[in-house]
């Protein structure tokens, strides 16, 4: 920690509160394209992030407060950086709120030792394994890959005595796997954000992507379909992590009156025929990409019940919204966790159904949950046959879909999600062939 900066903050008697974070980041990046190493990068950074709370007066002279933030960069003086944050805070007149107090922080698993201690070697070894698998496969070729390893150390101190340190690793992976030539060429694009290399099952993932690339080459147009839709593993995580749960479950959005959820009332728009829905926002998930001992305010990582048996039970709340709404301060939302479902995965995959393996971008309206999204790739499963297709639109409403869902007993971890590995949603619509 920059002791001069810390001393400067401690001397400021005009501040109602302050938080200081020191962030040290090291990143190693490996890029491969066209069968060779295309690029290598190493990045180093250290920064100090300051946030302050200042008591102000509202336009009616009522008690108010403002917050401001700044980052100390280079050889800037601490006083200049602090004053920049204070200047902004003095102009703001919000209802008064405080900062998180001193509290115990959980011990969490956030670090891949190899990525932290020997990142370049670990990335090269993983890439070599991938290249070897690709070289052995006669049907597909690896045309590009990116591997990013980042280690970040964070120290936090605030004016109420909260202190913490944490180290975390992050792994970014992208693979392009291609089959065919010319007009017959087809690809799959794998994109993962994880904390450790062990969560990339390189062989299994490669074989799955290779199979999908081959299937994509022979894929036809999407069927017209209204009936069960199945999502598994990363496609399911993508669906759940698309925004509405975080938006509606945010105390900030409740305070702004843009979330329609209320504690004790149903989270769904209507009662569906599916399994009861239970959702945790979990900032303690081992190796979860959003897990943290403490968030930017210093609020400890925790596992928060957001929805229990279809009923809204909690909101993820920063300190200010917790105080404004008389809710527990929980900090950032974290990763999604759902309990295991009741049905064997095999039952949920009974045909007929449509399985979507890749969306172009599942991007529902976060306020209403309505969506229509292009299907990048999927299968129509009927009579024991899996017929690949691409294109077409999946149409529905996110909350209605969760109300009509059945969840698998078997579970998966995808970095941002822990829970059932399969969902079967009844009654979604696929606009395919007749849609052009």
């Amino acid at each position: 920690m920059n002791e001069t900066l810390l001393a400067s903050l401690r001397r400021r008697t005009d501040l109602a509160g302050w938080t200081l974070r020191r962030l040290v980041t090291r990143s190693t990046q490996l890029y491969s394209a066209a069968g060779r190493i295309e690029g290598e990068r190493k990045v180093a950074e250290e920064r100090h992030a300051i946030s302050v709370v200042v008591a102000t007066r509202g336009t009616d002279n009522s008690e108010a407060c403002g917050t401001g933030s700044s980052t100390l960069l280079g050889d800037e003086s601490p006083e200049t950086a602090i004053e920049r944050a204070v200047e902004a805070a003095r102009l703001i007149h919000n209802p008064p709120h405080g900062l998180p107090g001193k509290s115990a922080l959980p011990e969490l698993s956030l670090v891949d030792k190899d990525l932290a201690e020997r990142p370049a070697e670990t990335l090269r070894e993983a890439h070599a394994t991938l290249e070897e698998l690709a070289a052995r496969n006669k049907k597909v070729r690896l045309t590009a890959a990116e591997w990013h390893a980042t280690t970040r150390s964070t120290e936090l101190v605030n004016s109420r005595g909260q202190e913490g340190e944490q180290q975390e690793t992050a792994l970014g992976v992208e693979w392009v796997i291609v089959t065919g030539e010319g007009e017959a060429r087809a690809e799959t694009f794998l994109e993962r954000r994880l904390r450790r290399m062990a969560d990339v099952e390189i062989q299994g993932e490669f074989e799955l992507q290779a199979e999908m690339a081959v299937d994509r080459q022979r894929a036809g147009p999407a069927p017209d379909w209204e009936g069960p839709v199945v999502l598994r593993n990363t496609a399911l995580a993508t669906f759940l992590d698309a925004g509405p749960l975080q938006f509606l479950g945010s105390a900030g959005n409740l305070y702004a009156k843009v979330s329609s959820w209320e504690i004790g009332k149903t989270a769904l728009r209507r009662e569906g025929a599916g399994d009861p829905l239970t959702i945790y926002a979990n900032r303690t998930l081992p190796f979860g990409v959003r897990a943290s001992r403490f968030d930017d305010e210093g609020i400890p990582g925790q596992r928060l019940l957001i929805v229990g048996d279809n009923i809204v039970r909690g909101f993820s709340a920063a300190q200010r919204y917790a105080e404004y709404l008389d809710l527990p301060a929980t900090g950032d939302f974290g990763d999604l966790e759902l309990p295991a479902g009741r049905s064997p995965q095999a039952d949920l995959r009974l045909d007929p159904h449509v399985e979507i393996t890749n969306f172009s971008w599942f991007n529902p309206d976060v306020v209403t949950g309505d969506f229509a999204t292009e299907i990048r790739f999927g299968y129509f499963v009927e009579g024991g046959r899996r017929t690949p297709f691409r294109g077409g639109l999946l149409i529905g409403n996110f909350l209605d879909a969760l109300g009509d869902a059945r969840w698998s007993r078997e579970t998966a971890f995808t970095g941002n999600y822990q829970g059932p590995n399969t969902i079967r949603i009844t009654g979604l619509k696929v606009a395919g062939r007749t849609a052009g």
Partner: protein
Amino acid sequence: MNTPSLTLPEPIERLRPRLAKAVERLETKSPYAAAWLGDRRGFSISVDRQEELVSEEEPAAGIVLTAFDGRTLRERAVGSFAAQDLESEAKTFGESLPPLDGGSRLDLANGMTGRHDFRTAAEMPPEKLSLAEKIDHCRGLQDRLRQVDPRVVNVRIVYQERAETSVFRNRQSDLAQQIYRMRVGVFVIVREGETTRWNWRFKSAAGGWESIQYDDEEVDSVVEMALRLLQAGRVDPGEHEVVTAPGVSGVLAHESFGHGVETDMFVKERARAALYLNRRVGSPLVDIFDDPSLPGAYGMYFFDDEGYPAGRTQIVEKGIFRSGLTDLSSATLLGVPRTANGRRQDYGRKAYARMSNTFFGPGDSSFEDLIAAADKGVYLHKWNSGMEDPQGWGIQINCHVGQEIKDGRLTGRYFTPVVVSGYVPDVLQTIRGVTGEVVTEGGWCGKGHKETVFVSSGGPHLWLRAKLG
């Protein structure tokens, strides 16, 4: 615009003269070397009925040293502008490079020699206004909408300002630029019974405060549309005649012959467009451009992050695909001309081939012509996102508002959300009408789901057929 009076932040000004030596040192080991200093700072103001926030955007400030041998691009980056960090990185990086094979330099002439300084033109540069004045401006817009309709549950005004400074140095050029990017957004949330809808509008520009002002009618129209959406339904899925507003046209350009012609995707065998150079990909009414030099457009710059001077690239000419968008590495590997599209998110990321301001060229129809020509269709007013599929040539454009067209007239019946999908050449082949005015709208763009850069996209109104859902 060459503006020698440019005043750089003091740490960058101090470091700039030392870059030549770092490049020279690296070129003892590498056929080509360059140094780049990037400093991006910004903040946002948010004012709504419940609270006000001023938030610093996480700054990104640092040095990138590049060594390129024509095949492999190696970089070291450090988040600092300290002279000792530059010298230490140049020394250790140079020592880590493989021996120079043959000793020849790569000729990577970038079209600019010597020293040039640039900054965005502005009648009222944003740094001339205080933070208090900017907050008051947001409060004023928010107050304007305070009592409009009881169904309005909140109105949020968002102001975003970013100052980007970069310096590029290689053996022949010494370039600096300073660019201000600003956006003002108006968000309205309305509720009636159990139905909640929202609407928004953004104005964006690279330049001065004068470019992002709203008049009363523009602000009121955001509320008016939000209220109309309370009764909006879903469009019948299927193929429709479509008229696209300029912003929606822009997303079509961006996702079809924008991402799909970034030539790093050619190297990775990810772009079907590589098979279509000088072949027809759209109707003869289709012209698509990328132009980082477009004055005032949100994605503008004077030189790219690899030192190449900004200029217009015609990607599609009368329906024929003519040129990709290149960065240094892919242009060298493919042996194709450079365009000014080597861009990096910040010093922590490598440069890729990226868009700047991407838009359809103008035609000669009027908006009234296009609506009158559609028997039964949808006018797509407003977009919120898009996604590319350069290999499969699928397209997804998420639109927030569609309005029914029937018998050549807008009926006042609205749809939300509406998604455009289809096969890129099929969609571009159906373009049968193009209006004369070109408008761009600012936003951000990722490569997949990362590597954010600021861009704009736009065009005139288009008349086409596409799948909607």
